[in-house]
């Protein structure tokens, strides 16, 4: 008698399983949770988890709960390719991540072939110039940010010469190749062009080289941990020229790691929990409460990526992987339509984004927003 009950229970569970699976939509996040990209990747992952928890608490997407899976790429392009393939084989609805441009470049063709939308944190200008209709940024491209920085260096910092220090990976090389023509266009001399390595620990020699270039300002384009180490090395060498950077340099993690050395750093910021937008600040509070530290821009990017998927799915009123990409291209998502998007975002046909951005400065260990810059195509 007991065995009959067990068989009946097992059959019941087996019959119920498909309906449970249908109640969920699977998203796979392929991200840098260790290696050189661990800081950026951890923020991105946490942002995604926060969005998934919020959406699931409100009933999910079209009534289906999100099942999120994270795979650590160890900031390795080979591992990233394998993880993206695994995500597709496992039937992910869309691919989230990675954040570093190099691994994105190495893996984006896989989701393109599978016609599945991939939402990435990378900023390298070249990523969206390859005709991939399934790749979507969650941050501004270098091509959009660098003219604003050159303009800032010329008109606000009043720099006649600039030393450029960059990290020799796809992100840094892309940034370096984008800023130098913009500086030259603005009539600013490049006093030093210093390449550094991803994961580099000792920046003393680079800081000395930059100090001796006697540039009016220094443009720093490194990843998070390297940015902090460079700022510390620059302080050790007594560099007192304005340090200007793009989003990463003014990120919360860089400020935390660099300590006093981050004070006075200025630059352009794509996303910030300190921006004068209540939804950003609300996100910042939620993130702080859950993870006990302040989110950087990558946390916001991860959060918004999930809401881009939600908006597209609800717009097409069905779960259609290919349709997500088709719906997003050329769309403008407004917070009035989808509050989780946090700020009005236009998605270009090539996957680039256009939205407002900010000029910021680090004062007493806090990022302070000085001005809001409009969208490129308002």
């Amino acid at each position, binding site marked *: 008698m007991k065995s009959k009950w067990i068989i009946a229970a097992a059959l019941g569970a087996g019959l119920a399983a498909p309906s449970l699976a249908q109640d969920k939509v699977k998203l796979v996040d392929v991200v840098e*949770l*260790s*290696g050189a990209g*661990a*800081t950026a990747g*951890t923020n991105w992952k946490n942002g995604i988890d926060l969005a998934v928890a919020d959406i699931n608490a409100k009933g999910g997407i079209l009534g289906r709960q999100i099942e999120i899976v994270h795979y650590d790429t160890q900031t390795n392009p080979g591992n990233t390719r394998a993880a993206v393939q695994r995500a597709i084989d496992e039937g992910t609805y869309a691919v989230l991540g990675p954040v570093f441009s190099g691994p994105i470049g190495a893996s984006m063709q896989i989701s393109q072939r599978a016609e599945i939308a991939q939402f990435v944190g990378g900023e390298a200008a070249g990523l969206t110039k390859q005709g991939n209709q399934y790749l979507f940024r969650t941050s501004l491209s270098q091509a959009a940010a660098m003219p604003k920085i050159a303009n800032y260096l010329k008109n606000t910092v009043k720099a006649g010469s600039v030393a450029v220090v960059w990290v*020799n990976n796809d992100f840094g090389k892309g940034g370096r190749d984008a800023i130098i023509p913009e500086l030259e266009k603005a009539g600013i001399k490049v006093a030093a062009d*210093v*390449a*550094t*390595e991803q*994961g*580099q*620990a*000792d920046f*003393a*020699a*680079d800081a*000395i*080289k930059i*100090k*001796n270039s006697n540039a009016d300002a220094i443009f720093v384009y490194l990843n998070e*941990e390297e940015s*902090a*180490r460079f700022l*510390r*090395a620059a*302080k*050790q*060498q*007594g560099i007192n020229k304005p340090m200007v950077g793009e989003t990463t340099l003014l990120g919360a*993690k860089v400020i*935390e*790691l660099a*300590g*006093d*050395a981050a004070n006075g750093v200025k630059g352009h910021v794509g996303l910030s929990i300190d921006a004068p937008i209540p939804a950003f600040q609300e996100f910042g509070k939620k993130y702080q409460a859950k993870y006990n530290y302040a989110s950087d821009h990558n946390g916001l990017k991860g959060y918004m990526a999930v809401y881009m998927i939600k908006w597209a799915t609800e717009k097409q009123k069905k779960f259609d992987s290919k349709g997500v990409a088709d719906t997003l291209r050329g769309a403008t998502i407004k917070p009035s339509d989808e509050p989780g998007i946090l700020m009005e975002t236009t998605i270009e046909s090539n996957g680039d984004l256009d939205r407002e951005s900010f000029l910021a400065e680090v004062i007493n260990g806090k990022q302070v927003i000085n001005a809001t810059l409009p969208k490129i195509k308002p």
Partner: protein
Amino acid sequence: MAEFIAYLIAGIATGAIYALAAIGFTLVWQTSQTINFAQGEFVMLPAVLVLLAIKLFGAPIWLGALIGIAAFILIFGVGFKVAVVDPMIRHGVLPLAIATMALSIIMKEGAKDGFSAEAQNFPSFVPTQTISVFGASISLQHIAIIVVAFAVIGLLQWFVGGTRLGRQMQATAQNPTVARILGIPVERMVLLTFVINAALAVVASVLISPIYLAKFSNGEVIGLFAFIAAIVGGFNQVRGALVGGLVVGIVDSMAAAYISSSYRLAVPLVLLVVIILLKPEGLMGRKEERRV
């Protein structure tokens, strides 16, 4: 000239750290005739343990440092000898070398999973200011590294050459059988060597972590450069490790300054190849002959 002095001082500071780690290589080599491939992780871990103690026990920095350092010396000085070296050495030096490779991975992954995959701030005991030397701005942190590292190495040299215990240690390293006949407690001397190695790693860790930040992967570069330093200077001489560390540190700094940071890893490796070809025993090493 001022620029050159600044690069030189930065190189000597980095080289002093490599020297501390390289001395660890030579100490282990002298007592067990093997290479500790976890030496880089030995320098990485004390800083992580200090931060972990602060986090777990809510301890102030000084207490966290005390707990972390004591735990490290106990586990990776005494424990390393008892749990890894003693059981493996009877099977030859190769199994022991492989065991240290495994230990290196365990330490790295343990630090990543048990602490954090992200870099963390490590407090500095000197202010981040500069002083002017012949027109060059020199960081107080670099000066502190040089002074402390040289003081520790000087102390070690005095201990090894100028004290009864140190001479017993030397005798044990040179010929354990004869040392035992002479009544020297060989096992205790070998244990002391491993404790000294752990203590040197602690000093290197505390000095370098405010600059490199505390991170599980820090040992990779430090271990590699210290290994090169030990070979360049001479694997069987403590003063060889010192010279090798300084040479590699200066070459590293000059390569980053006058060639590019992208090639800074390659240049010491080229130096290593040149030394192996021209003076295989290292700059300060002595030739060893073994009967097969």
